[in-house]
């Protein structure tokens, strides 16, 4: 970057090089000073004490606290990812339907769940069934509620006890993640299908395929290649969002790091937080790398006539905007 011209800077001459060297020195000093001040503060408050850091060198701490937490995080993320994908395909294709009575409700659901904060959705799933189920149990829908819970939601550990539905934290996190990420993925699916040039479907219709065949044999196989990087980077978002389970006391990685370990080892919250952050960063960066690799491969390998959606357009497309409007795509991962 320093040798050649970029959009902003010409190739530096002798004076520019001297100035850059000076700026390098000054900025290094400033950054080191900030870092030094933080280290001094750490030392001042006794945060370098061995007893605060030693727990992370013990295998028992990893075996009994961090790894089970990581397991719960990955379990919630995996279940939610599969269900969100299903939700996304159903509602994404629903929004593309020719029938208004499918298109409009599907669109309303997708826009609604994208406009509500995920934490509020998790609260909805966690608290509300418990509060309203007794009055449903007394009404004519009581049997329906019991059958639904016993035969379907029991899969996620939801229980019904004398008419009161109890949703465990795991199920609440999963359902919340599915509603929100499913809606984002629905928009990705829609954008993916819309990115295939019109000539493809026209050609498919002209050889006599029906709607179903056009979608299943021509549009979707090409759209999936286009969507893949965007889907994988949405999964990073989903994985990060499992940490919201902390707030409703789901025993995931963040809970292990911020409640379990500090309670047992001299309240070492900063140290535990740093170690947990490293675990999250390692996992998320490898998944992001995979998404970037997929994007590069999909761009090189022209088996689709659509334009590959980026691995992250900075943020998930907001309500009222479409995925394709997001022109300035970097290699960003969405913040939500």
């Amino acid at each position, binding site marked *: *970057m320093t040798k050649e*011209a*970029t*959009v*902003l*800077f*010409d190739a*530096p001459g002798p004076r*520019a090089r001297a100035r*850059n060297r000076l*700026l*390098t020195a000054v*900025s*290094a000093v400033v*950054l080191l000073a900030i870092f030094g001040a933080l280290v001094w*503060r*750490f030392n001042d*408050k006794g*945060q370098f004490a061995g007893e605060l850091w030693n727990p992370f060198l013990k295998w028992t701490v990893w075996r009994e606290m961090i790894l089970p937490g990581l397991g719960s995080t990955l379990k919630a993320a995996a279940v939610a990812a599969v269900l969100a994908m299903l939700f996304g395909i159903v509602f994404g294709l629903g929004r593309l339907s020719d029938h208004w009575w499918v298109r409009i409700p599907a669109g309303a659901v997708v826009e609604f769940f994208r*406009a*509500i*904060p995920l*934490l*509020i959705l998790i*609260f*909805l799933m966690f*608290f*509300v069934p418990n*509060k*309203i189920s007794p009055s449903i149990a007394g009404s004519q829908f009581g049997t329906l509620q019991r059958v639904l819970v016993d035969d379907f939601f029991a899969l996620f550990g939801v229980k019904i006890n004398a008419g009161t539905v109890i949703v465990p934290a795991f199920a609440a996190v999963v359902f919340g993640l599915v509603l929100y990420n499913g809606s984002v993925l629905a928009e990705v699916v829609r954008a993916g299908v819309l990115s295939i040039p019109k000539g493809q479907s026209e050609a498919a219709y002209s050889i006599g395929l029906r709607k179903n065949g056009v979608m299943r044999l021509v549009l979707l196989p090409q759209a999936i290649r286009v969507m893949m990087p965007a889907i994988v980077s949405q999964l990073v978002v989903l994985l*990060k969002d*499992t940490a*919201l389970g*902390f*707030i409703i006391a789901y025993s995931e990685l*963040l809970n292990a*790091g*911020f409640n379990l370990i500090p309670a047992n080892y001299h309240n070492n919250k*900063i140290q535990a*937080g740093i170690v*947990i*952050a490293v675990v*999250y960063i390692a996992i998320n*960066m490898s998944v992001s790398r995979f998404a970037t690799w997929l994007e590069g491969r999909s761009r090189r390998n022209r088996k689709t006539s659509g334009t590959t959606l980026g691995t992250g*357009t*900075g*943020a*998930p497309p*907001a309500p009222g*905007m479409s995925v394709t*409007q*997001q*022109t*300035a795509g*970097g290699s*960003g*991962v*969405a*913040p*939500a």
Partner: protein
Amino acid sequence: MFDFTAFFDHFDEILDGFWATIRLAAASAVLSLIIGTLLASFRVSPVPVLRSFGTGYVNVVRNTPLTLVLLLCAQGLNDTLHLTFSENSSTTYYWWAVLGLSGYTGAFVCETLRSGINTVPLGQAEAARSIGLTFTQSLRMIILPQAFRSVIAPMGSILIAMIKNTTVAAAASYAEVALVSKTLLDAPTFTGGAIPLFIGVAVGFMILILPTGFFFGWLAKRMAVAR
């Protein structure tokens, strides 16, 4: 099930919660733009130290859950290291929530700005230099106007995601609307008001978010660069 009296009994608390959400969102919007612009200028600067600092910061923060960032701010930096903003606990938690949320959102703002600069073709800069514009002139008249226009839509999405993310400050001891709702819902007597509360909170967020989304969508279309 749709007992709105329980909801309206606590209406003042819920409105206070929304007011806290708006204060947090407004301060974070300004601060995250500043942090993001600063980081973006680091990442495109010709100074290697600043460039690697920017890259490191963005990669670390973007891959950390926001809940963890806010918890480290509130319980780590504030409670453990005693780096407080004020003696008053609600003020200091507010500023740590603002700082944590802005530091997190700033990483995304930085990436968007940087990719906006990258959408400007090199030929534009070369043409600017060849007609004798200086660095600041080409930045001000050629590059930034084009870069800004292409980042309007993604910026709108980041702003909206940030507004929704203010709810996560519930983990960082800041009493915004999610924490108010959780406190209400934790009470076993609050049964009939649960659905009205959810509807109220949902409508509140839609009032904040939908106009923002439509505004940025409209602006992006209006300001699009014809290339």
